[in-house]
C-alpha cells in the first residue's frame, strides 16, 4: 500500500463561497450579503437557474448572493458585497470580515488570497432602506 498522501481535494469554490458567506454573516456589524440576480433565481427554484448555474470547481469561480469565490492554483480569492449596521464603523467591520474569512480559508488548506469587500449599504438594524 502506498504511503503517498492523497492528492485529491474536495475544496471547491462553492464551498469557499459558502464558508465566506457564513463567516461574514457571523461578524458583528454585518447586516446581510447583498443579493444578486443569480441568487434571486436560485431562490425561485432550480429550473430558473438551469442555464445560469455555475457549479463550484477546484479551479474556477462560484457566485452567489453577495459572494464570489475563485480558486486558482491553490489560492482562494473572495469578493463580498455587504450591508453594514450604522451603529458600527463600516471600515472596521470590513477589516474584521477580511481577517475572519482569511482564517476560515486557511483552515481548508488553501492559501487565502485577496479578500475584497464592497460596502453596498449602511443602514439602521431593522431600519428602512434609504436610497
Amino acid at each position, binding site marked *: 500500500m502506498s504511503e503517498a498522501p492523497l492528492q485529491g481535494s474536495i475544496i471547491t469554490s462553492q464551498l469557499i463561497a459558502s464558508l465566506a458567506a457564513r463567516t461574514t454573516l457571523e461578524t458583528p456589524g454585518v447586516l446581510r450579503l447583498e443579493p444578486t440576480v443569480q441568487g*434571486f433565481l436560485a431562490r425561485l427554484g432550480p429550473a430558473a437557474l438551469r442555464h445560469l448555474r455555475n457549479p463550484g470547481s477546484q479551479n474556477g469561480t462560484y457566485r452567489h448572493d453577495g459572494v464570489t469565490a475563485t480558486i486558482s492554483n491553490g489560492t482562494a480569492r473572495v469578493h463580498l458585497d455587504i450591508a453594514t449596521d450604522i451603529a458600527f464603523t*463600516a471600515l472596521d467591520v470590513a477589516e474584521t470580515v477580511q481577517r475572519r474569512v482569511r482564517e476560515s480559508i486557511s483552515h481548508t488548506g488553501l492559501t487565502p488570497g485577496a479578500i475584497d469587500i464592497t460596502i453596498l449599504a*449602511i443602514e439602521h438594524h431593522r431600519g428602512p432602506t434609504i436610497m
Partner: protein
Amino acid sequence: MALDDVPRLGCGRSIDSIWATIERPPTAHEEQCDHCQTARTRLERLSEETRALRESDVHDPALKPGPGIKDAIMDVARAEVRRGSRILLRSADNGTTEISEQALSSLVRFAAAAIPGVHSRRCRIEIRPAASSIAGEDDPSGTAGNATTAGPRLIVNLRVAAAPGIDIPLMAEVLRHEISNAIPAGVGIGAGTVNITVEDLYDV
C-alpha cells in the same frame, strides 16, 4: 433552385405570412384562394385560443407571484443600483475595501434626518484620492471632517429644502457638523468637504 424550410401552401404563400396578418382582414388573394382560406380559418382558431390562454394566465391566481417575490425583486434592484458607483477606501495586499456612493449618501441622509426643519434632496459625493489632498485645503467655511484613517478625501454635495422661518446659516452649520461626525463614525474616513445647498423651502 433555392430550397427553404418555410412551410408553404399550395398557392406558394408561406404560413408565416398569413399568421403575421391574421389580425387584419383577408387580402384580395386570400378571399379567392381556397388554400389561404383554409389556412386562415385554422390560424384564426389558434389565434383565438392563444388570446384566451393569455387572458386566463393574467387572471389565474395560481400564477400570481408570492408576497415575498416583489420584495426580493426590489432588493435585487436596489443592490444593483448600489453596485453602480463605488469609492475605494483601502487597498492592501490582502484585499481592497470599497464603498458604494449610495451607502455614503444614505449615511449623509440619516445625519440630515436628525436635524429638525431639513429635508434632504439630491446628494452627490465626489472623491479625491488621498495623495492629491493638500493639508489645510478644506471647505470654504473652514469646517473640515474629523481626520481618522488616511484615505480618500470626500466632497459631499447635499441639496436640501428647509422649513420656512428657519435660521438657514445656523441650520447649515449644524447640518455640516452632523455630517462631518457621521461619516467618520459610520465609515471610518474623514468627511472632507461638505457643501450644502438650500434650494427650496417646504410647507410645514
